[in-house]
């Protein structure tokens, strides 16, 4: 009996120390100063979405993640660490990105991350690099120019169970709302005239409109959900450097070039922070 107890205690002690060591490891990597480490290793990792059109999408041709977020991450890194720095793009999802950042698997996030008060307690946000928000898409030539035109008798297509449906109910209480299961199906329904407009996040709508020049985004955004780059708490120096780099690429035209590359063909685009 006594021996069994001792064994059990020993087991618990081992587990506890193992946990401490592991926790220590994670802590180490995430709390090391990013600026110093990257200057030494000349390598920086960014977490980017790999399933979001125009922002970060795995290209079947090249096997690489390509998009606006990737180019912004690369431009910012080069601005801080010089053109020779190696930028690693790590695919993340909406569910994994926060923990990957906190564990130090990535140094920063450029992953369509909306700046919210709750998230501000968890990460440091850069300045806004993309004006995301809910928008309307219509067929070119439509009478609907903004959310105000969604009057009685008009039909809006939204995605089942999304916040955007609740938002449009508030912004246009008289319009009838048709909710479809996913973005592709909703766009197909819009094309067949099942609704007068489609509403969703502007980033999603841009992705759809990029495919079909008969459709445009109108009236700007009627909610504000801006994207910021995410940096670990405690990385104040790196945070400052990122903000400064953003300002520089906005001033020297690099930012505008990247916007033009990804959103140049989209009518009604207003997501850029530089007008």
């Amino acid at each position, binding site marked *: 009996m006594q021996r069994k107890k001792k064994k059990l205690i020993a087991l618990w002690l081992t587990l506890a120390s193992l946990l401490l060591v592991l926790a220590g490891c994670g802590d180490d990597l995430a709390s090391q100063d990013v600026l110093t480490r990257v200057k030494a290793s000349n390598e920086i990792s960014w977490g980017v979405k790999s399933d979001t059109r125009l922002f970060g999408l795995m290209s079947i041709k090249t096997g690489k993640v390509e998009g606006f977020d990737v180019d912004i991450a690369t431009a910012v890194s080069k601005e801080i660490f010089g053109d020779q720095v190696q930028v690693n793009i790590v695919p993340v999802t909406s569910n994994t990105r926060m923990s990957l950042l906190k564990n130090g698997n990535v140094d920063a996030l450029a992953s369509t991350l909306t700046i919210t008060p709750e998230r501000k307690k968890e990460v440091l946000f850069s300045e806004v690099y993309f004006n995301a928000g809910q928008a309307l898409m219509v067929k070119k030539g439509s009478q609907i120019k903004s959310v105000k035109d969604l009057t009685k008798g008009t039909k809006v297509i939204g995605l*089942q169970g999304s916040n955007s449906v609740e938002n449009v109910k508030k912004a246009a209480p008289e319009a009838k709302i048709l909710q479809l299961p996913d973005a592709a199906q909703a766009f197909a329904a819009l*094309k067949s005239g099942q609704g007068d407009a489609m509403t969703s996040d502007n980033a999603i709508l841009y992705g759809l409109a990029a495919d079909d020049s008969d459709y445009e985004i109108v009236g700007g955004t009627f909610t504000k959900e801006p994207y910021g780059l995410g940096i670990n708490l405690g990385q104040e120096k790196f945070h400052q450097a990122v903000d400064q780099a953003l300002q520089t690429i906005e001033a020297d035209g690099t930012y505008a070039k990247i916007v033009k590359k990804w959103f140049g063909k989209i009518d009604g685009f207003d997501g850029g922070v530089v007008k």
Partner: protein
Amino acid sequence: MITILTDHWADLVAGLRITLSASLLALLGSLIIGVIFALFVISPLKPLRVIGNIYVEIFRNIPLLVVALFFYIVIPQFVVQIDGFTAGTIGLTIYTSAFIAETVRAGIESVDIGQMEAARSNGMTYLQAMGYIVLPQAIKIVIPPLGNQFVNLVKNSSVLAFLAGFDLMYQANLIVSSTLKTTDTYLAVGLLYLLMTMPLSYLMRYLEKRWAKQPAND
């Protein structure tokens, strides 16, 4: 589950109404179309047989969702503007009618060929013999399988949920997405579907019993 029923009663009733009307319309439509195509399939005229077979084989072998989406997405682009309810009900009608055609055809073929021959030799035309002698006997035989088709039809009407048809299933999905009470909502909706399909089953069983008592040709 009770709170789901009480809190969202108006939505559920609205959905129930849509589901019922879509089912009734499709039931009537598919019965008529189904019988017509069954007659085509067994017709002595080859062109009619070919048309009937093509129709049945196409719509019986395509998933209902695909047929319904075709009417929701494709038809409005090229032919006429129809909403989710109409598209769904048309899809449901056509899909079910193919199965009913097969069921009725089997019923007609199970009626002894002598019945047709006897009627024809008494001076009836083909259509008269079919309408007065063969079909009445065939319908009695196919009541149980037809009942199955009708119950399936009511359940299949949930396809409207994918076309923003505002039916019971659509309302259920919206309730789930706003309350996140998945189990309770789908349980409640399952009960509401039972409320529609059980009486239908009993009605068909009643008809089956009543008509089975009568002699074949009364």
